[in-house]
């Protein structure tokens, strides 16, 4: 997770071979919240879902080790995986939610590799379910959920009906460690396999990545002594 990422020589993306892939930090918080709700006996079963190639089963196992009951691995690999984005994932989640008759979908607010912050919202829209995004506190009250949301102006508290989609923000909880005994027990929990086609989802992307470049190296700053110097320099480089 901390390897220096570099751009592929053909600028089509970043090199992912050999880079450790681990659970998105906000999704860890989401899993922790779900497990906490189950421990409070407010929900019956937690299913961990991940879309991607074979390596994602490791991530699902970590979720199972944290306390989820079973997992679902939606296999997406190759070109489909490279083109996969929030729209395709939310279609998959929407289809699964209907199939599993879920009452809550909890996700991380955004993935730290693309920072899209779209999957939760799109999933709710596709299902026509209410959404409680950027949650820093979740309380289940009968058939309703009270969500305290972190917004620019402060905190907003809303009450939404279930079934609903929630997205986890940083301060919702501190995820527990997946301890070794739990990892060993998780090997016995079931992970079901399926493909997007089984759920009637087409993976065609509406987005085409043209080019990936490294951010430009930051140039050294220049110190000036007086305001006149500053104005002269700004004039010289065409800013004013």
């Amino acid at each position, binding site marked *: *997770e*901390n*390897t*220096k990422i*570099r751009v592929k*020589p053909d600028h089509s993306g970043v090199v992912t*071979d*050999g*880079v*450790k892939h*681990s659970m998105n930090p906000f999704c860890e918080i989401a899993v922790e919240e779900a497990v906490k709700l189950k421990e409070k006996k407010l929900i019956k079963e937690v299913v961990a879902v991940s879309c991607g190639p074979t390596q994602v089963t490791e991530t699902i196992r970590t979720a199972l080790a944290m306390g989820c009951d079973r997992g679902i691995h939606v296999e997406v690999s190759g070109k489909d995986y490279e083109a996969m984005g929030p729209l395709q994932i939310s279609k998959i989640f929407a289809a699964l939610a209907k199939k599993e008759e879920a009452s809550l979908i909890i996700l991380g607010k955004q993935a730290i590799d693309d920072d899209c912050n779209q999957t939760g919202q799109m999933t709710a829209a596709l299902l026509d379910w209410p959404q409680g995004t950027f949650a820093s506190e979740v309380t289940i009250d009968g058939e309703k959920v009270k969500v305290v949301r972190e917004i620019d102006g402060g905190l907003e508290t809303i009450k939404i009906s279930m079934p609903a989609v929630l997205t986890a923000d940083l301060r919702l909880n*501190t*995820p*527990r*460690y997946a*301890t*070794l*005994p739990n*990892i*060993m027990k998780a090997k016995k929990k079931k992970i079901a396999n399926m493909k997007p086609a089984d759920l009637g989802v087409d993976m065609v992307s509406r987005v085409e990545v043209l080019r990936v470049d490294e951010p430009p190296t930051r140039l050294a700053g220049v110190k000036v002594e007086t305001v006149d110097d500053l104005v002269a320099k700004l004039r010289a480089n065409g800013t004013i």
Partner: protein
Amino acid sequence: MFPASRYSIQAQRCIRALKTVKAEHAPPQLYTWRWKCSSAVTPRITSHYTICPRDKDPRWEGVEMERFADEADVVIVGGGPAGLSAAIRLKQLANKQEKELRVCLVEKASQIGAHTLSGACLEPSALNELFPDWKERGAPLNTPVTEDVFSLLTKKYRIPVPMLPGLPMNNHGNYIVRLGHFVRWLGEQAEELGVEIYPGYAAAEVLFHEDGSVKGIATNDVGIAKDGSPKDVFERGMELHAKVTLFGEGCHGHLAKQLYRQFNLRENCEPQTYAIGLKEVWLIDEKKWRPGRVEHSVGWPLNRNTYGGSFLYHLNEGEPLVALGLVVGLDYTNPYLSPFREFQRWKHHPFIAKTLEGGNRIAYGARALNEGGYQCLPKVTFPGGMLIGCSPGFMNVPKIKGTHTAMKSGMLAAEAIFPKVTAKDLASETAGLHVPEYEDNLKKSWIWKELYSVRNIRPSFHNYFGLYGGMVYTGVFYWILRGKEPWTLKHAGLDSAQLKPAKECTAIEYPKPDGKLSFDLLSSVALSGTNHEGDQPPHLTLKDDSVPVANNLAIYDGPEQHFCPAGVYEYVPLETGEGMRLQINAQNCVHCKTCDIKDPSQNINWVVPEGSGGPAYNGM
């Protein structure tokens, strides 16, 4: 806190008074040692439970310390070439004889290969024995060696040294590999054979039966705060019990250090001597790329009395990548020497710079390696366990290869254990199985012959002419006599005892990094991808927090700030008053173990941090 018996009544009163101050995450607490002559103020640095026991610590009262335990037939500590080869061999034997065998392997890195760092030129001898069909299985040996070049460098020039067949450095038939990728492949083979591999879990403690034999290991606790107190997410590690436990922690393992003392394994051998290897991977200009080319050099920038040399290997894996690095013997005497900065300035030599110009650095890392060879081999078996790989140290120093011998030692260990562990009745005097056959097999194998024949090359360096004397010795005795001379030379002793006081040495003027060929320490550390959970006790523990300033800084000018390749140790001015304090930036650590080896006070004890912490090497 500190073992109270070591201090006087006055100090005990101080400690008791301070215990009532239960500050959770306070800045370094200051203790004034009134009973010492100097009024030195030592901020608290070490909070790890191996130095500050938890059983008397009031913050740990009532915390559940019971551990979950599980049983396996064999437990292996360390997912490197030795550990994985042992695991694979065990399962190959079990599957062939249709016997059940539970083999569990724990590895502190977040994934297999992430803490692996080596040149490396792999001699495929052990691999051919382990997997004769390694090519069909897709082992990443993609770069056969095509040219072998050896140079003696001076500040500006290069003297070519002929690479005659028969010299230990000759690489005909070998492969340049990215060892991290090779180890990852070994891990995949092991999992396919049914080995249970648990990356991200470090073996933190050795467990013992009542009769003193090894019972297994316990993995690290998680969720301890920086000041040593339990956090909400605190969880105890797990115990893995086994009939035999294999310790393959690599060079200078921390559990091995404990086992040497416990079972007196080093009573008949010399203390191990080490070197530090720093490595970078560069993407170079395609026009300069010569896949399969192996370059080694000795000489500049090291003086003739500082052992060391460089490597530069051109890989053949699609992109114009080169792996390069510098190895510096840790028996150096000048406390101002910085292996990192020697490495950076070596790259400016015209012969090296011409390959790197126009290229981009994409990786950096460092690791200690063994230099002792035959004279430093300890006893490797004890009731309940054994040592494999670079941990006891089977590296062939003049060949600069240790992977093939590490793998072979793992395989020999497996072959010795298997009949005993699957026998109908365990017939053992001790609860943990003792398998001395492993040591006998080692002595009969090619590892022993190989290490014996090169045993005098490294120590031959300890003469007035230093490097030149060593080269002459190698030319005469190894190349001609193949190591059959009847004497065995000795090493210089403990590396940590070799430093001269700073006032007897001159500081070395290193050039500033130019940002194109040479770089500063912190940007290099960033490239290693190293990181640790910040809120945990520093895993670089000090037996005595006052020793660094009183001894290391006072006499040796703080050599740890020069030899650490990750900038962990810094002497900074105290926030109030005069004087300095040692700041330990544990998060930067790349797990090279150099500090534990070279600290002249032998006050630093490296212990394993929370699992998954450490470098994130990819194919190093």
